[in-house]
């Protein structure tokens, strides 16, 4: 979208379309409980794109699946979590009610379009099915709407293409077809989970353009999940950086890239090979992403953090306002800036005690 003017403005008034609070999704195995998503909170407003960026295993996809109600045993969304969509609490819904939300409120695009399409039905068939189930449109009208949808996602010769099978489409075309299918449900929120990761860069550019266009046309809210910092910079208005199940930094996209505050975000941005060429070595982050199985009573990035100090292993950092401008927070004991170490620790402890009780304890 046209971020070029200034996205440094606060969000408009009104309720967020999607509001996630203290989301905790755990996977119970015989040996341990893995806290794949651990106390994640964020909002998505109408017309904006919120990015979630993180390495594999950071819990970004599980966050998306939790919102869609797609967590199966042994996974579980803990009861303290709250996911409000358009004023409605989703975590309390029954399976049938959830299906209703997925059918018309929230649409999702996955990484692999091959797996989102049924290989034995034509593309037209699948779009018409979505139209019939969700909007009760059938017959010739369905055919027309389906053609329009395929055209709106930039597939040339749409009418003919409706009668083709997914294998006759190229990768980029398939992703377009999946987007058309999702649009058939007229969603208000679009969750895109690495929708361009499997595609070539020229095709990725096409799909990113398409998503932006669709979003502007329909004033959609979009939650965009990716590991690619370049894609995040391109498409999102606001970014949440995830690490080991937690959001470590939230910022507008400009702030995130110009003034990253959390040591992890900094390291992540510095390790992108890019503008600087051979000769200047790449910065690397020592160690590996841990599996979050212990309760969060410490900073999970501390073992790899170049700026960690003793207290990092003992106190869970809270989100601290670090921006000179709007809504920029980082969960790190280095902040608030300008205070002494003891003061900062006290500040975090005070926040933890005042905040939600679920943040301290072990619920399992």
């Amino acid at each position, binding site marked *: 979208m046209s971020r070029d003017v200034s996205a440094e403005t606060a969000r408009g008034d009104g309720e967020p379309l999607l509001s996630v609070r203290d989301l905790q999704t755990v996977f119970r195995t015989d040996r341990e409980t893995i806290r794949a998503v651990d106390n994640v909170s964020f909002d998505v407003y109408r017309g904006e794109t919120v990015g979630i960026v993180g390495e594999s295993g950071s819990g970004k996809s599980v966050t998306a699946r939790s919102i869609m109600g797609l967590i199966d045993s042994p996974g579980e969304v803990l009861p303290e979590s709250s996911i409000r969509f358009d004023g409605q609490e989703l975590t309390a819904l029954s399976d049938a009610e959830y299906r209703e939300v997925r059918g018309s409120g929230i649409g999702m695009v996955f990484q692999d379009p091959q797996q989102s399409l049924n290989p034995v039905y034509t593309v037209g068939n699948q779009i018409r099915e979505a139209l019939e189930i969700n909007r009760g449109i059938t017959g010739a009208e369905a055919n027309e709407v389906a053609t329009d949808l395929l055209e709106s996602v930039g597939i040339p010769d749409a009418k003919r293409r409706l009668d083709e099978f997914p294998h006759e489409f190229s990768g980029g075309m398939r992703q377009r077809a999946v987007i058309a299918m999702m649009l058939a449900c007229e969603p208000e929120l679009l969750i895109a989970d690495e929708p361009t990761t499997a595609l070539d860069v020229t095709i990725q550019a096409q799909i990113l353009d398409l998503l932006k266009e669709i979003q502007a046309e329909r004033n959609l809210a979009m939650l965009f999940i990716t590991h690619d910092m370049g894609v995040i910079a391109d498409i999102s208005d606001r970014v949440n950086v995830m690490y080991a199940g937690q959001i470590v930094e939230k910022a507008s996209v400009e702030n995130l890239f110009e003034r990253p505050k959390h040591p992890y975000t900094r390291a992540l941005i510095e390790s992108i090979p890019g503008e600087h060429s051979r000769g200047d070595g*790449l910065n690397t982050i020592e160690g590996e992403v841990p599996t979050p199985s212990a309760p969060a009573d410490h900073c999970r990035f501390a073992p790899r953090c170049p700026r960690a100090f003793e207290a990092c292993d003992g106190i869970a950092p809270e989100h601290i306002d670090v921006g000179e401008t709007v809504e920029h927070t980082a969960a790190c004991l280095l902040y608030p800036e300008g205070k002494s170490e003891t003061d900062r620790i006290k500040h975090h402890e005070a926040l933890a005690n005042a905040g939600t009780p679920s943040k301290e304890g072990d619920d399992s």
Partner: protein
Amino acid sequence: MSKVSGRTERAARAGETLIEVENLKKHYGGGGVFAKPSVKAVDGVSFSIKRGETLGLVGESGCGKSTLGRTLIRLEEATDGTISFDGTDITTLSGEALKDWRRNAQMVFQDPESSLNDRMTVGEIIREPLDAHDWKTKQDRQERALDLLTSVGLREEHYYRYPHQFSGGQRQRVGIARALALEPEFIVLDEPVSALDVSVQAKIITLLEDLQDEFDLTYLFIAHDLSVVRHICDRVAVMYLGKIMEISETEELYEDARNPYTRSLLSAIPHPDPSASSRRITLPGTPPSPRDPPTGCQFSTRCPAKIQPEEYDHVEDDVWDAIERYREVVRERSRMSLGTVDRLKRHVGRFSAYDDIDETVADLFGDVDVPEDVSEHVEAAAELVRDGRPEDARSHLAEEFNGVCDLRRPELHPVGDGDHMSYCHRHTDEYGDVEPVIDRRTRDT
């Protein structure tokens, strides 16, 4: 030790040509009378790699870059052309000579999940090439494997573990250790970091650079990620549909790309900088099938700088754009074959399955001002499609609107300084330069 003397000898010869590829082709299938046309995965490429240098090979999936890499180390038999390695043509090697030569050229694969045998320990995996070539004694081989583990940043105790006990980055290190086992001079790295997270990527790239310095290796680095390539390569070749579109020193290519495809490709990379205001050239459509490549320039179906034939010089850019899209649609339809019933219907003139072409025409040309001499041919082609003869429509459009890009293969022209070469008709004096055309055509979009 012989290793040391071998290395100093290699270092001394750094800078001279190690690999010289001449008009290399690799086609799959075809040949028989009834066979479908062959897939031209690599279709006549020539380049050289100097000793100690890293040549990057980039392109979209299906452009033939992996096939080229595999052909270079004889994992695939070349259909035509020569590969001279240190002066010997390796396409003709066989038997013992081939096995001997194989020590010199190794490969690291993209997917560390599937390129390591899960039933062998890491030690066995690294030792396997040594065993296969009967390298020294068993004791020596084991020691060599342990040495290799430490040089790729793993620990000796990892020798007895299995691949599934390792993370993706560590597995890739095992793959690299295996490739190094026989002290090769040349390693093909086929997307070695594509499957890894960015923080792990950085570590593997650093490792590869260190190893290159330590063992004086020559790399062919295959990737689709242009930013990684910029970081590690000395020179870069850009491939599209089996052909090298542009080849140059890395920095020159990134700063001053001349070929329309390279420019589009570079502009499509999302920058990790939201304030970057570079204009993106979004290419239409997808690469054509390598079974049925364009007769002229391979890139002509998507090129933003395609040359218009002279007699249609007056046609506006948006109309020309619509014509190109229309040709794409017709081309797409000519690829589908009709069933028997439809053929019968066509014979008696009652064929109607393709009537929807009118809608497509209206859709494409609806909002643009089409000149008389263009609309006449658009209509004629639509008529042919309606009659069930999209092949004829395709050739009708081709006859009318073909320009030099559709008709003739371009050549690699030297551009800029040094060995900068680009494959495009626009580098000849007859036609305008690439840059202003792209600028003009992408301004409004």
